[in-house]
């Protein structure tokens, strides 16, 4: 079973990201469950997405998957759409799991109002310390802003992070597996853009360190 937790801010495209992972796994014949944050909490608040899937061989062994929520310390992969939210959700990660995180911070209005500058640097440093101590098995930091600028759209961060996540091997399939999911789930005029972001995200993993 593969457990994925997606942590971000409402409006960042986390719901679509978990849908794409689920769709890609389903295309492969896996049994999938997801859970999303939808409704009031979605409006600029912290949001969590859960994706769990059983491979065909696990299904063959009669394994069951009923609960859509990933228990704490059971996630193989945590995708953080911004540094603070990645840290907030870190207790979902199993010891030695993979973290893919966008380096760009989303400053909450509460911080701006409190005259606190929040740039995510302390949170990224903390994640790095956790990678050093092997609490995090593999830490992939993605410069999402750069990819968005290259693609000419601020709204492809989610797919870029999926590209990096797939390249890390934590999903058990490659970035190419997302192509069909993108074609099925995204409006036609944005497909090429998202495929470009997917490839750039996948390359970001390869280029890491």
């Amino acid at each position, binding site marked *: 079973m593969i457990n994925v937790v997606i942590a971000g801010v409402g409006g960042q495209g986390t719901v679509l990201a978990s849908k794409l992972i689920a769709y890609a796994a389903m295309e492969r014949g896996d049994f999938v469950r997801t859970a999303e944050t939808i409704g009031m909490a979605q409006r600029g608040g912290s949001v969590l997405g859960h994706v769990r899937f059983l491979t065909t061989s696990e299904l063959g062994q009669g394994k069951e998957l009923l609960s*859509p929520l990933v228990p704490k310390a059971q996630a193989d992969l945590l995708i953080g759409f911004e540094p603070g939210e990645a840290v907030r959700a870190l207790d979902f990660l199993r010891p030695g799991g993979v973290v893919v995180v966008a380096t760009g911070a989303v400053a909450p209005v509460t911080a701006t109002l409190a005259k606190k500058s929040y740039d995510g640097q302390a949170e990224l440093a903390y994640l790095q310390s956790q990678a050093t101590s092997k609490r995090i098995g593999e830490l992939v930091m993605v410069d999402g802003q750069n990819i968005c600028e290259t693609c000419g759209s601020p709204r492809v961060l989610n797919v870029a992070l999926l590209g990096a996540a797939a390249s890390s091997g934590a999903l058990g399939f490659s970035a190419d597996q997302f192509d069909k999911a993108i074609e099925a789930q995204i409006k036609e005029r944005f497909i090429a853009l998202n495929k470009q972001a997917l490839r750039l995200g996948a390359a970001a993993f390869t280029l890491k360190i």
Partner: protein
Amino acid sequence: MAKELLMGNQAIALGALKAGVNVVCGYPGTPSTEVLEALAARNPGGIHVEWSTNEKVALEVGAGAAFSGARALVTMKQVGLNVAADPLMSLPYVGVSGGLVLLVADDPAPMSSQTEQDTRQFAQFAKIPVLDPATPEEACAMISEAFELSERYRTPVIVRPSTRICHGSAVFETDIPYQPHQVGGFERSPHWIVLPRRAFEGHKEIIERLPIIEQEFCDHPLNAIEYVDLPGLAKASKITSKQPLASASSGQPIPRRLGIVASGISYAYLKDALSMLIDETKSGGKHGIGTFAAIEELRILRIATPFPFPDQRATEFMADLDEILVFEELEPVVERELLRVCGRNHLSAAIKGKLTKDTTVAGENTVNSLLQQLSVFLGMEDSAQKLPATISPESTAPELPTRPPMFCAGCPHRGSFSATKRALKGRPAVFSGDIGCYTLANAQPLDMIDTCICMGGGFTVPQGMAWAQPDVLHLGFVGDSTFFASGLTGVVNAVYNRANLVLVVLDNSTTAMTGAQPHAGTGERMSGTDGYSATAKADMERDAQNALRIPDVLHALGIEHVDIVDPLDFDASVEAIKKAVAVVDAGNGVSAVIFRSPCIAVCPPKPIPWVDPEACTLCRVCVNTLGCPAISIAPQAKTIQIDAGLCYGCDLCVQICPFNAIHKAGDSK
């Protein structure tokens, strides 16, 4: 077969298609909304799908269809059932002809609701059978079952999924041929008229049929008893007679016979948590929580039909048990029923759950909460600090900023509230709010909504406040969908009783909080009169012409001063509020302002403004007035910055910057 990844709510829609549903009505409400939307999207033609004005209207429309022999599905969230309570209570008395199924979604640890009420209790109160799914697959299958039950016993039936089922996705076969249920037609009969004499007869009929339904539920395959094969214990088998207990004199604890009962999604969590604990025991207790102790037997009862409660099945389950732990969310409905069954049958099992504080009393259950509570129940060490699943975050982690929900960047409500605040600067005023995105005006820095209790309360609560405290200015805020759902009677009351207050309608041309549904004020429908999927251009144009106009409605209800203003025009909005307040100050009764600008979910973004770093003094007026998530302080800079990914181009910051440092896209300094 085509396979699709479907959200629980879409799967429920699939279940309704399978059941040949004829009429579908509801009112949007998280987490129920997508059921009706999915039915509209998959309408093969011939199904009437409508967003009704509110839940009471929806249930009455659905009841009418069922009186005429159609299969009707009525969808709403749990608090919507409060609105529909009037017809709900009478319906079991008059009964139905075609099946009438209510899909009522509960919201534990409210993600989008004002209460943690439990629909299973409402079902008990109204004496209506209720089905409680544990997965989206079950929720889908239960729709057909509910229709059959409804027709077999002439009663409405409730299906109650919770948020994690509604918004959880799974894979479904979607090649479902739609065979419409044959509508029998309305047949006149005295039982359709709920006169007092008939109510007495109806009550007797309900009391007679419930035990028959209960019998049926006792054999329900989902109300199953499972015997758990625990490692280290003798092979589990069904024990028919109570074995003599081991002696306590050896110093060993007496082995107990244990039972676990679960309802709804807690059953899914139970299966997960139990298998994790069994793995832990098989690994020799590598996390140091020990192994199962002093257990002779463990069995599980799933309750999928909380009302009428399957007494006989529960009696059989509990007969020789020593202790029982109950997992359910919201109210201790099953727990109380088990206590009742124990009392009735003189059973000695100790029932543990919410009432004894052995399980989570409020909010959502999780696999982690079950792990902790189960490990204690099963005689293991308290897993709270031992299992990796429950390790708390390390103390070295940086302190994270809180991130409460707030208005989206570009939301027109930000303009409505900041302009109102500016217009009333320094004047004592109370802002009564309502249910919708605009409740979020309560957040800093707007800090403006002072009361919020229910749909429509935004127009009525301030009337009472104004009678109690006439020297303070009172304003009531209601959104456009809420205006039609529950606001109209409040307007009538204000005009009739000559209340002194300003009514503000926040018209963003959609039902925004639930994800942009149309309503009477937009005119767009979910299916046309001839059962088409409402996309034909001619029909959409006709729908737009039929849209009810809020200013006309307010005038017709007797309000003379009705101002319409664009909340993204800050100065005009300030003026509109000042004028409306002047009417109230002059003692001329109710005045109204309609802030009209579409929700960002239903209009395209506009070009985003730019910041002149030389002119920006970091005075923070934009930050402190608007609290826009797209505006933040640039790191290592002495200016604000605008996030291109979030900004929607509302230009409110351009208008309020006192140093002319923020400019419209394309404008030069």
